[in-house]
């Protein structure tokens, strides 16, 4: 269980996995199979980048039946407070223990740009609501028959403005137990981020660093252009451009990054571009 592992101070590995665009879960199961027993939990996305997919609650349930521990993403974009709470009660009922909360990319970024954006709650308010459900009461103060026992997390960029740091403090105050960060490419800057969070009162919070193994210069450019909060530094792009085998170099760089981060934070979260075919190898090279 990642709650116990993180809280006991053991280095924890999570990996991102997407529900299918359709009803066929075979590809998702194959992806999960590639990293079985190599990671502690699968982090299941919620219509990521505002692209419609199978609900994370259904995908988590299918993965749980196959013996995987999951972290269910839950965004504020698509559901109001009634739907968020009933989804959370349903998730608890299905045995889902961990929730990762985020605002959610704006609908115009995805494949249903005309969708009505909900954002009834923000991520701070959603974390606070989960804390209430964990105490056995809903957002209106009604008592629940059976409370939830969620281990809740939040997300964060690693380069924060003063006001972004202030929001992160609120997420911790509202009940976040752990933070998964956007992809880290600069350990020096990441170390500054850790200091910032600890100084801001988050001494107990568990921080899991995001890792995106790069495949080529093209991947790096794509991430810099399209993914909020990702900044692949110039020196990394230069190394990839001049390499005769950028794929292998990307694997090596990811493994080196994990080795370095292992000394300073509580875990890593692998977010591959495409598939998990190299994830096991990266973790082995990092000595995990």
């Amino acid at each position, binding site marked *: 269980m990642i709650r116990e592992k993180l809280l006991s101070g053991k280095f924890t590995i999570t990996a991102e996995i997407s529900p299918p665009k359709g009803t066929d879960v075979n590809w998702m199961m194959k992806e999960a199979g590639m990293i079985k027993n190599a990671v502690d939990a699968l982090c299941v996305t919620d219509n990521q980048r505002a692209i419609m997919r199978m609900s994370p609650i259904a995908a988590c349930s299918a993965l749980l039946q196959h013996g995987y521990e999951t972290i269910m993403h839950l965004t504020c974009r698509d559901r109001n407070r009634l739907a968020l709470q009933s989804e959370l009660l349903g998730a608890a009922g299905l045995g889902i223990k961990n929730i990762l909360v*985020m*605002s959610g*990319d704006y609908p115009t970024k995805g494949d249903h740009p005309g969708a009505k954006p909900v954002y009834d709650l923000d*991520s701070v308010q959603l974390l*606070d609501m989960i804390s209430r459900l964990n105490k056995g009461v809903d957002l209106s103060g009604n008592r629940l028959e059976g409370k939830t026992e969620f281990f809740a997390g939040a997300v964060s960029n690693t380069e924060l403005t*003063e006001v*972004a740091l*202030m*929001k992160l403090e609120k997420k911790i105050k509202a009940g976040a137990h752990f933070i998964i960060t956007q992809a880290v490419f600069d350990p020096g800057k990441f170390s500054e981020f850790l200091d910032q969070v600890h100084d801001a009162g988050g001494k107990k919070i568990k921080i899991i660093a995001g890792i995106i193994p790069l495949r080529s210069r093209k991947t790096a450019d794509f991430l810099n252009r399209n993914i909020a*909060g990702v900044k692949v530094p110039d020196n990394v792009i230069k190394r990839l451009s001049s390499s005769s085998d950028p794929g292998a170099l990307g694997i090596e760089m990811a493994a080196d990054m994990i080795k370095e981060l292992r000394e300073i934070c509580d875990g890593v979260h692998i977010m591959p571009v495409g598939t998990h075919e190299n994830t096991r190898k990266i973790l082995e090279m990092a000595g995990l």
Partner: protein
Amino acid sequence: MIISRSKEFKDILKTVQQRNIFIIGCGKCAAKQHLGGEPEVLEMKKKLGISGKNVVGCTVLSSACNIASWDDVLTQNPDIKKAEAFLVMSCGGGVSIISSVADKAVYPALDTESLGGVCGDTIVLEQCGMCDDCDIWLFGGLCPVGQCPKSMRNGPCGGSLDGKCEVDERKCVWDEIHTKLKSLGRLEGLKDIHPPKDHSKRRGRK
């Protein structure tokens, strides 16, 4: 001020099937934005005429959303009787008021966008989220409900980068709120967790 945008003329033509049209402009917000004042109404009259419509008359009400009575409008504009349809060049408020009293089809010429304002010659969009529960002073006078596309009340989302919003070209209002409160020496209040909005205030009014 209600911020509106002109519909595409071809879309208006597609919607308005009737031939005999009476045009109603609005002397308030729409006129100020040059979308429904006298020059725009006369221009619309000309274009409809060229497109084969018969404009039986036109007027610019002092305010389309605030009329004494339909009889009053009729008395001042007897040509209305010849019309089969009205084209109203105002915000949705004006179109709705005219629709509630007119006995013929009413069509909008504008799309209503947001509650904004004008400062000098600059039109500013989406200033207020019309939540019916104003606490704008907490945010240095910048409304996060109206000005953040995600209506975030506790700080910026992860899409706010270098002071820019992820949604479009606008600035991140949370950066502006922070700058403003910092300059006023009132940053402490921003650290409070603000609860979700009570939307029952908006619809549950007696």
